[in-house]
């Protein structure tokens, strides 16, 4: 086997097996640091050995066994961890039964996303322990120094150990809240990648969307009955499907009504629609992500912006507002109302929303005022939007729209 083939095999197995290896070791040794380091060493050993020895018939089991041995070696070396060494099981060459291993990955997710950890820590830990991204990759994705990101992850592992954050799937009454916490982390990872992607941002940032989808698929496989998990996956797929049409060649954001719908990814849309249909067929009341996915399904169902079923969109936002009566939901609903009842009605609904520090609020007002021919006010609203921080593609779009306005 050539070195290139072996490297490709390691990369493939890394994506497929990293979380499983870390999760199994975290359970056996009760220590995230030991699990992470041993898993990394096992993959490093694979990089060394596979080109000569070939890829083992069961790479996952080979890696788990190798990592287990590395962990035992480390614990033997470190006298201060003598107590833990006695707790460690002896290495076994037999592959673990699949069911138990899958449970471990679910345990790993819930521990990484534990509410006792800060949100940015949950994100970093999830990407490291579950996603297998390196500290350097995570640091560059979030635009922080590698050393700072390393300390954040180290502190988190220390807190998990010292405070005894349990390694288990939460039971019964805690479960819905904790699942919601996991989904928040996954959606945040997705949005970091989605909103930031464009020229000038590190490529790994854009890869966060793919990573978020991959991790959400994993959670979906582990919790197939959870409607919100399915909803979030559908929402991500239907958003990702439009990514290629969302930024122009010159690096400017392209609004939904101007996007080339032929450039949308039909495969992702089909998968997203199937998930939305599955949730509709369940007859269960949808949660926030399922409703957002359904809204995106309406948009991606229309071959042309004029074919959009806006009454359906408004009805879905009504449903969402009942779950989440936040100003941001009311803003988004008003934007859909503009298509149904006209810009004047929508503008009245925006009045008084406490969103003066929120860029999309001013952008939406500017657009409605433009359609009403109120150029001067529209110009001021575009100015307010541009003055607020946002990504470069969006700024380029807002500047062009403002400069297109007629008259002073």
């Amino acid at each position, binding site marked *: 086997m050539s070195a290139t083939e072996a490297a490709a095999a390691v990369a493939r197995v890394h994506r497929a097996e990293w979380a499983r290896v870390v999760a199994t070791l975290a359970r056996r040794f009760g220590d995230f640091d030991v699990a992470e380091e041993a898993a990394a060493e096992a993959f490093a050993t694979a990089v060394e050995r596979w080109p000569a020895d070939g890829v083992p018939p069961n790479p996952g089991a080979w890696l788990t066994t190798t990592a287990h041995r590395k962990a035992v070696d480390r614990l033997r070396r470190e006298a201060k961890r003598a107590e833990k060494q006695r707790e460690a099981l002896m290495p076994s060459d037999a592959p673990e039964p699949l069911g138990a291993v899958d449970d471990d990955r679910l345990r790993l997710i819930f521990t990484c996303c534990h509410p006792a950890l800060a949100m940015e820590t949950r994100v970093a830990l999830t990407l490291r322990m579950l996603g297998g991204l390196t500290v350097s990759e995570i640091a560059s994705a979030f635009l922080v120094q590698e050393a700072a990101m390393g300390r954040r992850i180290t502190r988190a592992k220390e807190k998990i150990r010292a405070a005894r*954050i349990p390694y288990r799937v939460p039971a019964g009454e805690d479960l819905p809240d904790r699942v919601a916490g996991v989904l928040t982390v996954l959606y945040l990872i997705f949005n970091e990648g989605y909103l930031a992607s464009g020229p000038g941002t590190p490529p790994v940032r854009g890869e966060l969307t793919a990573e978020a989808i991959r991790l959400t698929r994993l959670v979906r496989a582990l919790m197939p009955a959870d409607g919100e998990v399915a909803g979030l996956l559908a929402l991500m797929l239907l958003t990702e499907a439009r990514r290629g049409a969302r930024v122009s060649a010159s690096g400017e954001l392209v609004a939904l009504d101007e996007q080339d719908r032929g450039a949308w990814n039909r495969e992702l849309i089909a998968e997203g629609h199937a998930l939305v249909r599955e949730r509709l067929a369940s007859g269960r009341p949808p949660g926030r992500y399922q409703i957002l996915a359904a809204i995106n399904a309406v948009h991606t169902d229309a071959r042309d912006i004029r074919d959009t079923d806006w009454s359906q969109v408004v009805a879905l936002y009504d449903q969402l507002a009942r779950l989440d009566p936040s100003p941001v939901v009311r803003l988004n609903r008003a934007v859909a109302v503009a298509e149904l009842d006209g810009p004047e009605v929508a503008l009245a609904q925006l009045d008084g929303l406490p969103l003066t520090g929120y860029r999309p609020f001013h952008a939406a007002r500017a657009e409605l005022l433009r359609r009403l021919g109120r150029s001067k006010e529209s110009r001021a609203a575009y100015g307010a939007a541009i003055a607020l921080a946002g990504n470069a593609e969006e700024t380029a779009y807002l500047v062009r729209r403002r400069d297109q306005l007629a008259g002073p």
Partner: protein
Amino acid sequence: MAQYLLSVITDSLDLATPEETAAIDVFNDRMIADGHWVFAGGLGGPDTATVIDNRGERAVVTDGPFVETKEFLIGFWIVEAADLDAALRLATDGSKACNRKVEVRPFL
């Protein structure tokens, strides 16, 4: 089983109201019955604190807390709990009972 310090944090020197005291009693009795109870106590305010520093040649006595803060420790529980989730559940009930914020920290 591990032990955790549940610190009661407040920004006012007001004593517990009769309702709060009654709720704390109920919470304490349940912790004792469930085997979580180790110890608990209420503290005087920061104005009653004295700091001793005897790291040098002679002990230096200072009036007041070691650091002035808007919020301060006013009481605590020491509890036995299986893990952080169990300790957080106790702290959730304790915070409700005493009507104040509670910080959870593990003993090493």
